[in-house]
């Protein structure tokens, strides 16, 4: 009997870490998908995407603190994310001749944007970490074995799955999605059909920023809003994008969940090597599939 309950307790612990990993992975997908979309269409490596998430997390925490209802908080975070992304887009556009086709310059450029945005956030919110209160409807706890687990995490998972489904629909079933995929496949031929790629890029930057913003708002009651987030989230998202295959939405989805789980299991089993576990995942995946899990194959 004692052995059985021990096995049960261990199973509960792993279940707990699986849920933690899944919920983090799904939030990560919202960030990684935006990154991979802008790269796929515009061939732009947008490292400022991490800062977009952080700004939205701060805006959401602020709005929730001001007493706004939860749906409006999420809306505010989404809009904030889209705005940050559009500002980055405007800056990139003015310097497009300089950064076009040169990944190193893009990295330096967008990293500069990230640092500036992070510093503006530091000035505005004084660099103090905040944790947003989850909405009262989801503030309860679920018991899993001996531990209890916030209901809010399940809400976040459900929302992220819904958004992922909506994005699949947008990409595969709408004219906008077809235009975005066509632009990622062969932008020149899309222009030769009379489609202005600037408008499409603008829309994709706004969408990608909105997704990161929504992720920042959704995750604010779990991850909080703090400085340093812009890097930590960015690194996880980059890992997911690389593992999934640059430019692939479905790849980003699978990879984000893998990264979330690897991170959660790593922290549980080998706490002192936690940051190593996701890098080990990168090494293993890229050794077997150098182009990522789902390689678009035509990225040059």
């Amino acid at each position, binding site marked *: 009997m004692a052995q059985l309950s021990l096995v049960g307790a261990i199973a509960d612990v792993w279940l707990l870490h699986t849920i933690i990993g899944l919920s983090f992975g799904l939030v990560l997908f919202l960030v990684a998908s935006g990154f991979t979309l802008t790269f796929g269409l515009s061939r732009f490596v947008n490292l400022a995407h991490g800062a977009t998430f952080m700004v939205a997390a701060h805006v959401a925490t602020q709005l929730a603190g001001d007493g706004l209802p939860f749906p409006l908080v999420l809306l505010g975070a989404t809009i904030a994310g889209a705005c940050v992304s559009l500002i980055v887009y405007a800056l990139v556009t003015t310097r497009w001749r300089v950064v076009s086709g040169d990944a190193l310059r893009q990295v330096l450029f967008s990293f500069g944007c990230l640092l500036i945005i992070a510093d503006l956030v530091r000035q505005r919110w004084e660099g103090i970490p905040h944790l947003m209160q989850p909405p009262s409807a989801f503030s309860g706890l679920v018991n899993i074995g001996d531990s209890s687990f916030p209901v809010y995490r399940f809400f976040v998972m459900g929302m992220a799955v819904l958004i992922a489904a909506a994005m699949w629909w947008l990409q595969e079933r709408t*004219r906008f999605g*077809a*235009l975005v*995929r*066509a632009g*990622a*496949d*062969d932008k*020149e*031929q*899309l*222009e*030769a*059909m*009379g*489609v*202005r*790629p600037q408008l499409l890029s603008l829309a994709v930057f706004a969408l990608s920023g909105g997704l990161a913003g929504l992720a920042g708002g959704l995750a604010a009651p779990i991850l909080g809003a703090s400085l340093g987030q812009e890097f930590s989230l960015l690194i996880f998202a980059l890992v997911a994008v690389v593992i999934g295959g640059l430019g692939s939405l479905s790849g980003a989805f699978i990879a984000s969940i893998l990264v979330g789980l690897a991170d959660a299991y790593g922290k549980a089993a080998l706490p002192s090597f936690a940051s190593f576990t996701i890098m080990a995942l990168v090494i293993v995946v890229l050794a077997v599939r150098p182009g990522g899990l789902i390689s*678009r194959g*035509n990225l040059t």
Partner: protein
Amino acid sequence: MLEVRSLTARYGAVPAVRGADLELAPGELVALVGANSAGKTTLLRSIMGLHGDRVGRIVVDGTDVSHSTAVGAARAGVAIVPQGRRLFHSLSVEEHFGLASGRRRGGPISVADVLEFFPGLARRRSVRAQALSGGEQQMLAIARAVLVGPKYVLMDEPTEGLAPFVVESVTRLIEHLPSLGIGVLVSDHGDGDLAARATRMYVMDRGAVAPHVAAGASAALVLDIQEGAVQ
């Protein structure tokens, strides 16, 4: 009228097209004949606005597109069937049709018309472009260009490397386009099949373009061009 005047296009310091003059009227089928590396592809890409390093004048029905991007040329009424097909690999045949015809209704040629010429594509509508055979890809590349509703279509060796029966249906569609008032400029280097059916012909050699007087060129001329005898 599509008019090209003194068009020069370069790759770095090397001119690939040197002072080209040509005209294409609506409803005309004009051939652009020349050996490989004569500059045909660069000329067509320059007219379309896809080759940035160019000088000269390009006017489409009175609209000057000399300094326009491909979007400008496309909106003025020019379309291209590029070398290597250049389809959107992740899009299905149907999605190519949808993007090309856009929200526009009642162009001179409809999806149904295209499928009459290319019945093979009708059975492959949900298939992604990368899974199509070479012949199907070429048919789709032509369909994509004409469904946009252009007044002038530039075709870069559209029958190159195709099976004879595909060449036949592609040629039938190309010959049909002028009857809809569409001007077609088709480049060709080999068997002269399309060149022989053209109303007029330009000969291109080492970047220079010259009109060839005798219409419906003979296979002998094409052979001369291949051997570099025509200057």
